[in-house]
């Protein structure tokens, strides 16, 4: 069979990636259907940010919930600040829900200076600037849920709470459980993005090395204990030994290039 001659598009490795997810509440509809997006108010937002510096991946994971001193405006501002700092923003169905809800919330709060969020929400669906994994995995066809895809790849998701539980938890005042849940979804989205980008670029190191770094980050941070399912998941168990090998292979490649350079310099000096 002839290999595809089509070059992978938009598969440059971004050095900074932001995966985010929001949780919302909305008035229930009589027929039980999903309320229209403008009626949703964001009550929590989760961020998983990955930075790659020369193959060393670092992570910053955070979630906020509207409670105490934290308002809806704080959520929206935090989203804008984080989006402004990264090369790539990824989400699951964010292009048709999360980004629209956040943009509307910004306008409701009279926050007009949030350029990064406005730019993100205005990204055309097919432009590729916003890596909406719901669209990418379905090739812009019929979408499925995050869990349906993560289950197949071995990424844990919705281990304690599901999206349908959020309204009840919110009413019960269980803001902390919502915060932990949205954080878990953001991390799952990040893992899925890494799997997607590795598959698209045909380079397993794009998933193995950042996943191993993610495991170390979760292990090292005491406040991320609830994310330990990611350390034991099938994808992580596959990635970690390969990441170690990829680290050594990358270093070997660098030093081989250095040796070659030194040889060239010696040859030049003796010529």
């Amino acid at each position, binding site marked *: 069979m002839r290999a595809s001659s089509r070059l992978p598009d938009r598969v440059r490795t971004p050095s900074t990636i932001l995966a985010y997810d929001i949780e919302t509440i909305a008035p229930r509809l009589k027929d039980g259907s999903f309320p229209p997006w403008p009626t949703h108010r964001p009550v929590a937002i989760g961020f998983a940010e990955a930075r790659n510096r020369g193959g060393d991946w670092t992570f910053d994971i955070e979630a906020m919930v509207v409670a105490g001193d934290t308002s809806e405006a704080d959520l929206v501002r935090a989203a804008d600040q984080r989006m402004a700092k990264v090369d790539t923003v990824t989400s699951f169905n964010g292009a048709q829900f999360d980004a629209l809800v956040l943009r509307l919330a910004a306008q409701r709060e009279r926050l007009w200076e949030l350029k990064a969020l406005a730019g993100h929400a205005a990204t055309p669906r097919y432009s590729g600037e916003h890596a909406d994994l719901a669209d990418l995995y379905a090739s812009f066809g019929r979408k499925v849920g995050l869990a349906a895809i993560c289950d197949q790849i071995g990424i844990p998701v919705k281990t304690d709470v599901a999206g349908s539980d959020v309204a009840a938890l919110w009413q019960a005042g269980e803001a902390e459980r919502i915060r932990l849940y949205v954080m878990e979804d953001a991390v799952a989205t990040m893992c899925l993005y890494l799997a997607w980008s590795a598959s698209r670029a045909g380079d397993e190191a794009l998933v193995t090395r950042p996943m191993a770094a993610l495991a170390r980050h979760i*292990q090292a941070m005491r406040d991320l204990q609830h994310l330990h399912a990611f350390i034991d998941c099938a994808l992580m168990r596959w990635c970690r030994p390969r990441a170690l*090998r990829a680290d*050594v292979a990358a270093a*070997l490649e660098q030093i081989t290039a250095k040796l070659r350079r030194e040889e060239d310099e010696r040859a030049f000096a003796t010529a």
Partner: protein
Amino acid sequence: MTIDTVALSTAWIHQPARGKRPARTLLVGAATLTCRYRFGSLGFDLAAHSTTVTDDPAETMAWLADWLHIPPERLLLWRAEDIVVPSLISACQTARDTITAAKLLRELDLSMDSEVIDVAESHGGSAASSFDAVAHGAGLPFRPMTLTSLGEAHRTGCHGAIRKHLASRAVNTWRLWLNSRGGAESLIAATDAWVATPDAEVRP
């Protein structure tokens, strides 16, 4: 040909940049415990190498590369991902002897075909307590060495202290791994018996 299991421990010193000299990581010591299982009996081989201030800094790298030349079936490390392998990579990347560094990286790369086990994983991974604390908790005898005393041993040419410390770590890495496995009683007994013999003294 492969050998069964190698437990590896290493020691390094990070030298900050000074003047025109860039920062570098010096691999100042390494120890290997090789465990071979043949015809129903277990054989051990403990070896260590160190480099101090008057030695060629590439010597331990060359020694370790030779030890890894025949890749083990199984390589046991403590904090492989975030400490041992990154420090070996850093030592190679900052070494002035590029050829020796490339040789070590190549052997390390081939060793990655083996089953690489991070023994720290069963003790919390990167959040694990210090190696000595875990060894102490498991009731294993250990030879502690702080970064300061390692630096002092390196400065004063005290090879014995570095080698004995690393040899003890390699043996304890093997023993901690055995403890984490079920049904390893006979191997634990064989290890205990070997440790009590003069053969368990580190071979330079």
